[in-house]
């Protein structure tokens, strides 16, 4: 059996393998660390952090749906100060590769977060979660319009300095995801993360009211995988040189391979971890086996393979 080069690159940074956690689905790593060493995965993507501590929403915060789930956490988190003081040093001590996800309510908040991150060592990339409501514009999600998406990215770019790769995480709830991708690539992002959750709702037929306290929530899990594959395929088709961190319903090595063939340079695993704490490790091993079976010696040859002629 030939050996597989399983490493991948996002911007200037190299990762030992392409299986990452998904933001908000691994907390800040310590909970998973008792099931496997964090060095086993390509990177841990932390839960989106904001400037201030946030309480988040009232429960119920989740509803299981067919092959999926809704969540409405409301970006609960300790705020950037505590995060940099406690979570990052702990992750560094575990020798984990770290991608920090940031979220803001205003364009400025993203800039402030980026500035806080610029001097922090041990971080491999920043993922900009622009699927957040813009409080300055009727709560419209930044990722839904090219101009607001670009404003956020420019604010981050200006403040982050140096060569920390910027990954823009896009929402699939748009008319034309390629248009948004084009805009943020133009604004200088190094990579895209596709996809965030789809906006959904469950009504509890017993109480006859929306099940979640926040009424709507984000749909994730295998149910949305076909939407993720489509989004990744479309964006990779348009921008083959921009690395994509793919995610959405990956629960097996086969699923990860599907996103990679569509054009993902790395794959984040979210909801699958809830069903199985060691999902990321299983997925990584299954993927390596599948790639080897198919005769790939270099993982990177598989990226976007579905686009190539027969």
């Amino acid at each position: 059996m030939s050996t597989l080069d399983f490493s991948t690159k996002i911007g200037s940074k190299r990762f030992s393998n392409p299986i990452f956690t998904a933001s908000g689905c691994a907390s800040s790593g310590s909970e998973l660390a008792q099931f496997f060493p964090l060095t086993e995965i390509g990177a841990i993507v932390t839960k989106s952090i904001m400037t201030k501590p946030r309480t988040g929403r009232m429960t119920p915060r989740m509803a299981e749906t067919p092959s999926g789930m809704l969540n409405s956490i409301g970006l609960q988190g300790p705020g950037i100060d505590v995060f940099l003081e406690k979570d990052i040093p702990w992750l560094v001590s575990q020798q984990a590769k770290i991608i920090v996800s940031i979220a803001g309510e205003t364009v400025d908040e993203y800039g402030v977060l980026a500035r806080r991150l610029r001097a922090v060592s041990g971080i491999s990339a920043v993922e900009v979660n622009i699927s957040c409501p813009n409080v300055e514009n009727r709560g419209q999600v930044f990722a839904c319009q090219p101009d607001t998406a670009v404003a956020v990215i420019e604010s981050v770019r200006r403040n982050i300095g140096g060569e920390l790769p910027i990954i823009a995480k896009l929402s699939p709830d748009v008319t034309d995801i390629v248009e948004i991708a084009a805009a943020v690539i133009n604004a200088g992002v190094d990579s895209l993360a596709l996809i965030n959750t789809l906006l959904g709702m469950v009504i509890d037929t017993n109480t006859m009211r929306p099940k979640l306290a926040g009424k709507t929530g984000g749909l994730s899990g295998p149910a949305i995988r076909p939407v993720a594959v489509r989004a990744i395929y479309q964006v990779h088709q348009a921008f083959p040189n921009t690395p994509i961190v793919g995610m959405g319903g990956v629960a097996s090595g086969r699923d990860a391979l599907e996103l990679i063939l569509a054009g993902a340079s790395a794959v984040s695993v979210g909801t699958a971890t809830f069903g199985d704490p060691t999902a990321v490790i299983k997925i990584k091993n299954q993927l390596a086996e599948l790639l080897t079976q198919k005769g790939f010696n270099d993982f990177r040859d598989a990226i976007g393979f579905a686009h190539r002629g027969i």
Partner: protein
Amino acid sequence: MISQKINRSAVQIDAEVISNKKVGPYHHMVFAVGQVAAACKPGNFVAISVGGSQSALILRRAFAIYRALDKGPMGGSIELVVAAHGEGSKWLCARNVGDFVDLVGPLGTAFGVPTTNANTMLIGGGYGSAPLFALAELLKNRGCRVDMVLGASTANKIYAPLEGKRSVSSLTLTTDDGSAGIHGQISEAIPRLIREYKTEVIYSCGPMGMLSAIAKIAEEFDISHQCSVEEAMACGIGVCMTCVVPIKHEDGIKMVRTCIDGPVMDGSEIIWDRKSVMDAL
């Protein structure tokens, strides 16, 4: 959010079903879990994957550990009391002896035990009685007085097996429909019983409504109250943040994960009034 409380004993195993018996509306199920049993403390729970490999049910289901036997004829085992509620728990109840389930545990916090002898009252609603029997045994062995109060909507929903009652000094039953024991909601009976038994510590497990009522009584009597809460959990291991309850905190409200900082929590710290939390957020 690094918590000091992560249950470091938790492991993921394939556990064999070694017994599955219907007891009233519940299933008493026993699983072979080997050494895991030794790490289980009263109050801990397990998270079980349901539905099989091509299931549309993608999340684990949480169940309190009813009993853990360190060394049995089949090695270590744990026992659960499962109500066939929705599709996931129905699937679990339908497992046969010899089937395997994917189980993660023990998870969460355990009931704290008083450092000195104390008069304790254990209050369980429905299958909420499950974790209380192991606790009763522990308390009894520590020299505590153990009064148990079990309630349910109707008689057959009270889970109170013979062997479980060994360790209790008294057992009071209540039913909403009067079909057994005292007629009425469990919380109505509690104040009188507290006085009667001179209760110093309350332990409770059951629906949130019941826990909330007991928390109020405990406050009135100014006695300590440990309750095992039940919030919908997507992961059970602390990574999803769905299972939170609001607790009082210097800067207002803090949401803590009941799978890590719970399920056993200090009843006086929890903010039971949903509306006040909704308004504050």
